[in-house]
């Protein structure tokens, strides 16, 4: 049904701000509620109470992993981005190589490489086995943490590289012209400006990071996903636990997006 030429022609018109209450949306919502009700009524959810506590612990584990790996990953990303913009050649190459390797191989593989590869290598050295580190090294989460953190650092490092390079030169020049020392300039102008520029992408990267966390289940870290995997194998249900899992991640992503939007709105930024 092509009646209005203006709508079939490929010239973009931004959609009007529409309310939630338009008829087709109400209809869609009704469908959604219907599907949801069907899922509640016709699918098996009797296992929920039994696994409730574990599920909460798993979600907590996921959140802790997300928060710590993103935080430390970001700390690492700042120097990674910075040296790629201004560093001396060797450091530049090193940072670039690191980012390329991490971004060029699957996280799952990195995780296994660390845990089953490096981890079992450690065990062959009695010195390590006897050291105070061993109680930590024999656990799984340090490997999961490291892999996730490095991955975040590599992806965010690329983002920071662009953000650092994108800070207008004039603003840095102004800082120099007023006699700022190099470190003051970095701390007061360059870094905050780069972070401000990278905030929208940081949001996306954090959502991606959240979505990467389930991989740690493959190295026995009990996160949300591995609790659900356990439910699946205990109950032999295919869909219900996975649907619940999808819902959990949906909610977590929603929370992240809202939190970042709040953060972004604190410093107005026009087009930069």
């Amino acid at each position, binding site marked *: 049904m092509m009646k209005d030429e203006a709508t079939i022609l490929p010239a973009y018109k931004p959609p009007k701000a529409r309310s939630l209450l338009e008829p087709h949306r109400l209809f869609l919502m009704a469908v959604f509620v219907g599907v949801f009700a069907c899922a509640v009524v016709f699918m098996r959810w009797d296992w929920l109470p039994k696994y409730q506590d574990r599920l909460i612990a798993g979600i907590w584990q996921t959140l802790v992993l997300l928060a710590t790996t993103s935080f430390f990953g970001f700390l690492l990303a700042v120097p990674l981005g910075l040296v790629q913009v201004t560093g001396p050649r060797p450091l530049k190459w090193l940072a670039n190589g690191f980012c390329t390797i991490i971004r060029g191989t699957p996280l799952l593989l990195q995780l296994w490489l660390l845990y089953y590869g490096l981890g079992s290598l450690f065990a062959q050295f009695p010195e390590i086995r006897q050291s105070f580190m061993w109680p930590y090294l024999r656990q799984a989460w340090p490997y999961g943490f490291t892999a996730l953190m490095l991955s975040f650092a590599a992806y965010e490092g690329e983002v920071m590289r662009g953000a650092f390079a994108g800070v207008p030169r004039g603003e840095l020049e102004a800082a120099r012209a007023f006699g700022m020392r190099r470190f003051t300039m970095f701390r007061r102008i360059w870094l905050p400006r780069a972070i401000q520029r990278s905030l929208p992408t940081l949001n996306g990267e954090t959502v991606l990071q959240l979505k990467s966390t389930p991989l740690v289940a493959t190295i026995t870290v009990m996160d949300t996903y591995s609790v659900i*995997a356990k439910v699946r194998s205990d109950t032999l249900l295919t869909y219900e636990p996975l649907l619940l899992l999808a819902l959990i991640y949906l909610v977590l992503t929603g929370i992240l997006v809202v939190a970042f939007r709040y953060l972004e709105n604190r410093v107005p930024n026009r087009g930069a």
Partner: protein
Amino acid sequence: SAEPIKVGVAAEPYPPFTSPDASGKWVGWEVEFMNAVCAEAKLECVITPVAWDGIIPALTTKKIDAIMSSMSITDERLKTIDFSDKYYNTPTGIIGPKSEKFTATPEGLKGKILGVQVSTIHAEYAQKHFKDVVSEIKEYQTQDEANNDLAAGRVDAVQADAITLDSFLASDQGKECCESKGNVVDDPAVLGAGVGIGLRKDETELKGKFNAAIKAIRANGTYDKFSKAYFDFDVYGK
């Protein structure tokens, strides 16, 4: 029918029963068993590797038609799928590092980290009998990784099918680090009635064929013949 039967095996290596070799071919006792049973039942069977974790959904969604992957017959599984008669049954053992002395009992495992493969009868058994005494039960996607972590010192004990454990202990890695700590006390309610061919509930005809074939190869000596290459005892069990 002309359609071949797709036999699902766990994609993760489970020697000596099923594991891929360097040419990508599947080898092991269970592969020989499949060949024998299918030949006997005049069925054309092809091996289809599936993740262990998803092997039952794969059966119910018809990606495969039968499971021959050391899957024990349990009440819980019988709610969802059907099984043929058992085709082997072995005790459940526990192994640990040579440097530590303990037994396969709740007292022996006190404070230890116990490794099991996820969604197996062993995982369930450990949950039921050892949960309160051990410091942690770690669930692995594959048996192999559990064994590896035992060698790497990241778990203190591994519980599994005694035969698999034996084959691990016979390997270079196993010989060096670990030894058997004995078998656990039987609990038929959990450990089940041996390993059977997993089938969809409505496939009674296929089930009948398989049952007859198992009986036949047991009777005509084929079963013993190919088993001898792998085990020095009767894997069929009591």
